[in-house]
Structure formats: C-alpha cells, structure tokens
C-alpha cells in the first residue's frame, strides 16, 4: 500500500533531504521526533514584526549562519535602541511551522501557529491579513477552505492538504 501513495518512510526520507538542503542554505528547518514513538516531523520557527518585516538584528533566515533566531535571543536585553524601537515585544510575532505526515491523506500536511512573544496567539483575522497578496484573493473567497483551524500539539492552523504545496514553497511569504 505504501507504493501507491506517498508513504511515511518516503516522507521521512525526503524530509531528511530537505533538512540537509535547509542546513546548507541556513533556512532553519529541523527534524523533531515525537516523544512516544518513532514518528517525527519537520519544524521551523521564525520571527517577524507585524508590519511584515523581519527584525533587522536577527537578519533574514537565509543570512543567518551561526543559527536561526530563537526566543531566547529576542529576550536578551539589547542595547541597540535603533533596532529594538520598532520591535516592541507585543508587535513581534513568532511563527512556528510543522510539517507532519498525515496517515489519513497519506501526504505531508503543513501546520502553523502564530503568536506574540507573550504566547498570546494571533486572531484568525490577523492570520488572514498576514497572507501574501498573491494568495489573498483565493483566501478571501473561501477562508475556511484554505486554512483550517485545528487543535494539534501546539494549537496550530493547518493549511488544507490540497493547498499545502502552495503554502510550503516559501513560508516566509506567508507573513
């Protein structure tokens, strides 16, 4: 049965390839194993200021060579007031992306969660407003068909499986 569809072993193999490439370009994806079994998923965390730009002191994901932005980095006191003026904690948004294998659909599924630094999640309206212009028309025609709200491990939103390929191509453009 695994031969007919994108089986889980296949998923894990291609994730390994994807992560190798991500490490080469400094894109920040990593593999995490689920606690109680051999399943795993890909994940990435990214920070953005609500107006759509990446906090400049963190650099863009592609330019980070020593590691990608973490919550700990952001919480360290920074003397550079020019940087932090525009990045008040309440306006910096943390995006967490997970790519899991769905045994129901037998395809990878993209989950994402957006929250402020204090942990408060973004509202659905904020999420929809943050969608890239090129996807906005389709989203606004059927917002509930494009992104589904689901209670996942980290209380995520899930991109509808038939659209997952669009969303995951360039996750930074989602914001």
């Amino acid at each position, binding site marked *: 049965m695994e031969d007919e569809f994108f089986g889980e072993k296949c998923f894990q193999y291609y994730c390994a390839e994807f992560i190798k490439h991500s490490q080469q370009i400094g894109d920040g994806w990593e593999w995490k194993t689920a606690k109680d079994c051999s399943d795993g998923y890909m994940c990435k965390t990214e920070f953005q200021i609500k107006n759509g730009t990446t906090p400049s002191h963190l650099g863009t994901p592609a330019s980070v060579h020593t590691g990608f932005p973490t919550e700990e980095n952001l919480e360290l006191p920074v003397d550079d007031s020019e940087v932090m003026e525009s990045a008040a904690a309440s306006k910096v948004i943390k995006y967490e992306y997970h790519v899991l294998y769905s045994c129901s*659909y037998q395809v990878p599924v993209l989950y994402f969660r957006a929250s402020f630094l204090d942990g408060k999640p973004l509202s*659905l309206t904020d999420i929809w407003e943050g969608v890239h212009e090129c996807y906005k028309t389709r989203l606004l025609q059927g917002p509930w068909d494009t992104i*589904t*709200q*689901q*209670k996942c491990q980290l209380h995520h939103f899930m991109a509808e499986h038939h659209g997952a390929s669009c969303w995951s191509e360039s996750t930074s453009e989602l914001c």
Partner: protein
Amino acid sequence: MTDDKDVLRDVWFGRIPTCFTLYQDEITEREAEPYYLLLPRVSYLTLVTDKVKKHFQKALRQEDVSEIWFEYEGTPLKWHYPIGLLFDLLASSSALPWNITVHFKSFPEKDLLHCPSKDAVEAHFMSCMKEADALKHKSQVINEMQKKDHKQLWMGLQNDRFDQFWAINRKLMEYPPEENGFRYIPFRIYQKLGLSTLYYPGTMQTKVGLELRERDLPASERYLPAYASPVLGIKTTTERPFIQKLFRPVAADGQLHTLGDLLKEVCPSAITPEDGEKKNQVMIHGIEPMLETPLQWLSEHLSYPDNFLHISIVPQPTD
C-alpha cells in the same frame, strides 16, 4: 426486530439533559438562574448554545461580555469535540443532569480553540468529513459531490434534520460491491485516566479531586490544561489527544474485523484480560457495544455525523 436504520435515528436523536450555571466569579447585574437544555449528542456546543448565551448575557454588564466558553469540573470543554463524546469521556459516570459551568472571562487560550462564528464549526465539521472520506474512499465520494451537497450535510446537522443529512450522507456509507467494506475505518479513541488521590501544589491533599475548588487554586493555575487536571486526569492531551491509525475493516482472509480486533491492535490496555477484572468501559454514544461487533457495521451505523467513530475508554464505575 430492530431495523438497522432505526439505529441511525436513535444515534441522531440522542440527547443529554444539561444544566448550565454561570461561573460564580462572573460579575452580574442581576441574578442568573441556571438554564436547562437537552443537548444533541451528535452536535457541537457552540452550535446549540445560542439560547444559553443570550440567557446569561442578560445578567451581565455589557462590558463584561466576551467569548463564551464552557467547563465541566475544572476541564474546559472543547467545542470541536462532539457533545456526546465530551459527555461519555468526562461525565458518563456522574448523575444527570450534566452540570456545565458557563464562563465569559479568562478564555483558556492554551486549551481551547476560539470559535469566532458558526463558519468555524462548519469548517471543522467539513474538514473531519473530508478526512473520514479520505480514509474510506480515497476522498473519491466527497470530491465528486457538488458544493450544494456539502452544504446540505452541514445544514442538516445545524438544523437537526435527519432526512436532509442522510439523503447525502448515505453515499458516504457505500462501498464497491466487490469489497466487503471501506478502505480504512475512520475512528478516534480517547482515553480517560482513573481518578486517584492527587497532591495539588499549594492546596491540601484532595480525595479524587472532587473537593478541589477553583478558589483554592492560585490564580495562575486555575483552568489548567486537561493534562494537568487533578480532577479528571485526562491522558495525553498535550501529546496525542486521541489514537488514530490506519485500520482495515476486513482481514486478509476476508473475515470482518471486530471492535475487539481494533482495540487489541491499537489500544490493548482497554481490553480486559481473560481472567482479569473489567477495569474499563469502551463507550460509543453512551453504550458499550459488544467487542464482537464488526467494525464495518459500527462505522456505518454508530459514526458521528462527521463520519468518525469517536470511542471513549473510561474507567469502569465502581458502584
């Protein structure tokens, strides 16, 4: 002899007598009497509680009215779980009516999804139906339906119209004559731990958590996520809230798999060993089907409207 189709009606029209009470710390302008309602087992809380909301909002000041949410004995109730599942899992061993507490403040962000509108419920419901059909028919049946058919499924549920719903849903219960059933069975198994004496930080030791009152808890620890609830100890909420795996209704030799076969494979702790004492109840829609029941039959007749079998494993009541 009961016709199998009668089972579909019995499932659809199942009701739970419920008493809604406003949380004592909500500030009221006038007295808020409890509100009684028969909740449909197969529906969702935010779909059927408009009257509850209106009733309690009348007692509150306008500025105190925010998103409504519900809780049972300290556990926030997930609106995206069918009502019957919530009851079976959390309250089936308690006396009726089901006592639910109503809140308008301190929305537990970590435990509950927001429900901004009925569209959210519809989207969740349709998402579950699509996933169920992906398992049963590789999504072929649901994808061949027109948008108006999808709408009819939703409107049938929303308006409690059995015939309207099943006029379309029956197509999702069919399978090719050469097969003996669906490709895989859509099911989810939820497990509740037994009550036990627990120490709770900052309070006295409690017996089975029933004496624990929210007033005794430090403010930061009220409305704990269910995984930390000392009262109900629902397992795995932060890890896996339910068990869901690929499982075929028919074995390689053509024999129909039973409910017992499923449990042995994916949740063996739920099954009583031959010489052992029965520790758990395996419950669907408030009843314990025989473990010899074919899973295919259960899927066709005891699924919720979302086409999933939502199965609760709860401790055997001691009395």
